[in-house]
């Protein structure tokens, strides 16, 4: 694959957190859920030995036409799933608590991303209306150039928000945007200005020549685009408008 170096870099880094260790080390119990259709990106629902439910998206299962429509490649969605989590983990709270943990791991001899099941249900407007959740979610989606954060791509359990599906992130400048609900909401509510902790996070990212390790996980142009977005956010003092990648 053209992203072998990036996959190797992610695999060399993951596993420092307990949840990552569980997701990497525990065996799978039984067969995957018998989904009625292979679905987009051929996702498998599985149980780990510790009881956690996870979703495996193999690199070989990416719907290439759909990926290309988003100006991704036939390989990048599972990589970007994992890199979004790596960035959230590198930035720490509150972003680390917002994103479903994800590692790169093989299942049935197929390499792919393995994401932890998020607790809750889709389409609840509560986190959009609550700054505690909307502000960090919007900052994160702006930074990672999320292309498809519609109301089915987060889960809300009545107490906390979890962002899911980061396959179409780290977009190239000019790539298509479908939704960025939290980013749009933050702008609409006049809350686009960066908070102190957001400025600090961006400065920490930019002050590291490897972008806290993230640069080695992404194709070079996408890593540069990430650095450029972080710089523009700092220069303007606000999150970027939806669709500015």
């Amino acid at each position, binding site marked *: 694959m053209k992203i072998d170096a990036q996959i190797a870099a992610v695999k060399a880094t993951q596993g420092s957190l307990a949840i990552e260790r569980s997701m990497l080390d525990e065996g799978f119990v039984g067969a995957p859920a018998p989904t009625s*259709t292979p*679905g987009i990106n051929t996702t498998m*629902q599985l149980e780990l030995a510790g009881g956690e439910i996870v979703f495996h998206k193999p690199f070989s299962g990416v719907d290439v036409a759909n990926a290309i429509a988003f100006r991704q490649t036939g390989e990048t969605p599972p990589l970007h799933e994992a890199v979004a989590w790596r960035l959230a983990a590198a930035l720490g709270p509150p972003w680390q608590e917002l994103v479903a943990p994800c590692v790169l791991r093989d299942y049935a001899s197929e390499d792919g991303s393995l994401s932890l*099941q998020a607790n809750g249900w889709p*389409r609840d407007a509560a986190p959009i209306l609550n700054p505690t959740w909307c502000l960090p979610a919007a900052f994160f989606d702006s930074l990672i150039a999320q292309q498809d954060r*519609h109301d089915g791509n987060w889960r809300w359990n009545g107490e906390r928000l979890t962002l899911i599906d980061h396959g179409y992130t780290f977009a190239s400048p000019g790539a298509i945007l479908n939704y960025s609900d939290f980013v749009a909401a933050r702008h609409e509510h006049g809350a686009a200005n960066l908070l102190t902790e957001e400025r600090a996070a961006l400065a920490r990212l930019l002050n590291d020549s490897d972008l806290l390790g993230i640069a080695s996980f992404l194709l070079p142009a996408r890593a540069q685009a990430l650095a450029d977005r972080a710089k523009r956010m700092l220069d303007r003092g606000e999150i970027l408008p939806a669709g500015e990648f």
Partner: protein
Amino acid sequence: MIQVNFSTFERDRDTKEWIKLPVAQLIADGEDVAISGPHADWINPDLAIIDPETAQRITRADGAERWARLLPFAFRNGDIDVEVSEVAAAEPAGVAFHYSTAA
């Protein structure tokens, strides 16, 4: 007519079997869409979906049946299973929310 069944799978910890749970059923018939089921509110009738063939945003207004066929592309996470099928005329069971783009 296009029928789209949405479901989830839960793990039975005792039997170690997957239990299929219905979420919603969507029927697209011409320009009309009806959504029924225990979690019909989880399905957004106004969702735009990127058509992989054209890279265009497609909504219900572009044709309910065309839009319904694209729904699997909007549910990539894996926790909501989406099954699309062509069906003969049918009426969804129970109460359904009806959406129409017709004037």
